């Protein structure tokens, strides 16, 4: 029986389009998988990570030859133009390293001497106790008595303006003390005409002022009581730690802020006062 026109058309359509439809379906399926891969970051990274890693490895390999000279030149320029700030930032770290090494060597030496002197000392104390009447225990106490930190001033080196302070008891006008201390310091340093050397210690009756200079600031610590090499050592450690933790951080922030639109918050005077109290308030020297 002959096919009618409609059936013929249907058959023709089937012959013509079947392959294409299957093909189109296949493509649609592939697209769906691709879409899923792109949208799913994990799946995407599975594919892209090896490529990125490879490129990164190549980049790292090339850094010394491509970026190396630029970085070195930038660093050199930065160190040249901002020498003071760079020194200010690394001074506490270097200071700590050198101090640590020297202190260790001295400790070994002093232990050796102590061992040899211990017997002599005990003998001397016994003789003193016998003739002088002071108990051996009291003599030991007086030998061990340590100093106390009364006041700490963080002062701008050139202007003598007080940046932050800590005082155990009510102190006299700290702004004036900072100014006068700076004037005395400048005078002594000028008078001896020794560049790169600075006043480190002032002594008056029962008080000592320990001064540690950095490039932009200096720290003055007023100590009452005993102030020996041991206390000096401890105070230096306290100052280096404080400066490294808080002042060098301010410098970092100043550097970073030059390239940022929003200025980071530099540690202000109030916060520095608190940090000084925390760092020096309960410290044993």
């Amino acid at each position: 029986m002959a096919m009618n026109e409609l059936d013929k058309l249907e058959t023709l359509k089937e012959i013509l389009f079947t392959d294409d439809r299957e093909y189109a379906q296949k493509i649609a399926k592939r697209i769906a998988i691709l879409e899923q891969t792109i949208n799913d970051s994990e799946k995407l990274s599975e594919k892209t990570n090896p490529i990125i890693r490879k490129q990164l490895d190549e980049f790292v390999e090339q850094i010394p030859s491509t970026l190396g000279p630029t970085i070195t030149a930038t660093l050199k320029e930065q160190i040249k133009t901002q020498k003071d700030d760079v020194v200010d930032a690394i001074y506490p770290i270097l200071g700590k390293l050198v101090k640590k090494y020297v202190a260790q060597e001295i400790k070994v030496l002093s232990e050796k001497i102590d061992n040899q002197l211990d017997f002599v000392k005990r003998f001397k104390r016994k003789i003193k106790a016998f003739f002088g009447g002071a108990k051996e225990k009291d003599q030991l106490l007086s030998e061990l008595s340590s100093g106390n930190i009364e006041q700490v001033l963080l002062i701008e080196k050139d202007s003598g303006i007080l940046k932050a302070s800590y005082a155990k008891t009510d102190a006299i006008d700290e702004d004036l003390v900072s100014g006068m201390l700076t004037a005395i310091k400048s005078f002594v340093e000028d008078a001896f005409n020794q560049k790169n050397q600075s006043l480190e210690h002032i002594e008056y009756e029962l008080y000592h002022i320990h001064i540690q200079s950095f490039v932009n600031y200096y720290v003055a610590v007023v100590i009452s009581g005993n102030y020996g090499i041991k206390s000096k050592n401890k105070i230096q450690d306290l100052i280096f730690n404080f400066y490294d933790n808080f002042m060098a951080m301010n410098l970092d922030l100043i550097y970073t802020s030059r390239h940022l639109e929003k200025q980071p918050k530099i540690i202000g005077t109030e916060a520095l006062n608190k940090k000084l109290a925390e760092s020096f308030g309960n410290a044993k020297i």
Partner: protein
Amino acid sequence: MQKSKKIVLVGHFGVGKTSLIRRFVKNEFSNNYQVTIGVHITKKEVQIEADKSINLIIWDLEGTDDLRTMRPSYLMGSHGAIFVFDVSRPSTFQNLNEDLALVNDRLNKVPLLVVGNKIDLVNKEDLDSLLQEHQISNHFLTSAKEGTAVDSLFTKMAKMVYGHD
């Protein structure tokens, strides 16, 4: 903590730097001249506006006839400077422009005010012709003895250094 700024007073011997500071800080004057040795530091809080004030840390430097001998370390870190001359003694201002150039050079572009002090010792006409003759331009004419323009001098300086870093 209050904002603090360092101000230095410079000038020849006996021009009245210490007296100007004394008048401003303590509102006192003494005819007994005492030479400043080295440096003397005082402090005064200055109200600039209703809610703005500043601590002036005033460095009174010893006078010198040759400003080149000024101790550079005392000038370091200054936020502002006042150059004082004595209107009754021409030797204190006859080289004013060179002196100012020297001070400016050492101060690194901070606000600087030029002050003719002791106007109570000369009459107005003589003073005007004297200043004109020596081509002296000054910002303030003061009398520490009578208190003329002393407050306005330091207030002006406080305002100048307030926003100046």
